[in-house]
């Protein structure tokens, strides 16, 4: 019997465990291939053809083509891999963090300057539900 995962209660957070790593193996290994300049060029030249070299699910491929940064994480992606796709697009960690949390760049940057997203109200899914 698999152990229950206590961290399923965390709001807005995917914990990248061995199950997620298996699900997202090819998606993440695709991202990793972007560490080589020639692969970045090949991907940019024809994204779909490049992606078809990996045995990913269609949903995973669509999340990449649509730059659905949260979607990639839901489908087994991990932020340190998807960050390599972001770098290929010329985006910083902060830019994709803003996108993933549904803020504009400016709002997100200002929130960080004010001290970041506060812990109060952000500890559990129940707290998020209460807030509505």
């Amino acid at each position, binding site marked *: 019997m698999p152990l229950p995962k*206590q*961290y399923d209660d*965390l*709001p*807005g*957070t*995917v*914990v*990248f*465990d*061995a199950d997620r*790593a298996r699900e*997202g*193996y090819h998606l*993440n*290994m695709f991202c*990793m291939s*972007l*560490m*080589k*300049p020639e692969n*970045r060029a090949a991907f940019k030249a024809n994204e779909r053809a490049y992606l078809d070299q990996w045995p990913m699910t269609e949903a995973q491929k669509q999340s990449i083509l649509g730059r659905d940064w*949260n979607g990639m*994480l839901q489908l087994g992606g*991990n*932020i*340190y*891999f998807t*960050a*390599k*796709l*972001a*770098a*290929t697009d010329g985006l*910083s*960690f*902060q830019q994709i*963090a*803003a996108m*993933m*949390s*549904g803020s504009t760049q400016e709002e*997100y940057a200002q*929130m*960080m*300057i004010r*001290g*970041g*997203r*506060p*812990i109060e109200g*952000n*500890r*559990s899914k129940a707290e998020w539900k209460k807030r509505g």
Partner: protein
Amino acid sequence: MARIIAGVAASHIPAVGAAWDNGKADEPYWRPVFKGFERSKEWIARVKPDVCIVVYNDHMSAFSLEIVPTFAIGCAAEFPIADEGWGPRPVPDVVGHPELASHIAQAVIQDDFDLTIVNRMEVDHGLTVPLTLMFGKPKEWPCPIVPIAVNVVVYPVPTGNRCYMLGKAIRKAVESFDKDLRIVIFGTGGMSHQLQGPRAGLINRAFDTRFLDNLAPDPEALVRISHLEYLREAGSEAIELVMWLIMRGALDDRVKEIHRFYHVPASNTALGHIIFENMA
């Protein structure tokens, strides 16, 4: 006999490296970050370690999902700089200390910690950003580095307690090395931060302050922080703080705090930094 004389903890935020590399260190956003390390640079120039052991995590640059070692030690003579998607950082390659590294592997594995031995490895911002913060922009890094990579990316990652005990084993190993070397150990990463998903940008200053306050006098309290508590209270990437506990474990029970710096924000992260010297 080789000795660990001091410990340094420092965040390893990639944007800090990029700001430095792109000549933005004097911009108003970044100036306070680099100012917080001015005393540290003076300190380490005075201390002049013969070797630094740098505990860091690979951000899926050298390793991948093919193989995920929990603890790995770099035994190579040289560690090239990884291309993380932007091209490699324009910093010197890292020179290793293969003799000391193999000795640590030999001793620590006999002491029941299973290190993975790595003979070819590129190093990423996790290792190079703290070097930049402490040493600036030298032509060559001033001393050889023994990299110790910890998996904090794929769960289950090691517990804080396991990391603390590994630190103690590393210290014992160092003290049985027969050359007179003065060593500084780095623990990198942290503090509170979350890079992913709708909760990205989470910062918990109270958690970080408690961690900094307890690290010298009461590390035993910190080693009991569970994975879930790090994740919930300090964000999904704050788990990197277990690497600070390896550094702390390698020091004396009594240490003197030399310098401390805490700054929010550095990109998505609460940047934390502390320096301890051994007191016995």
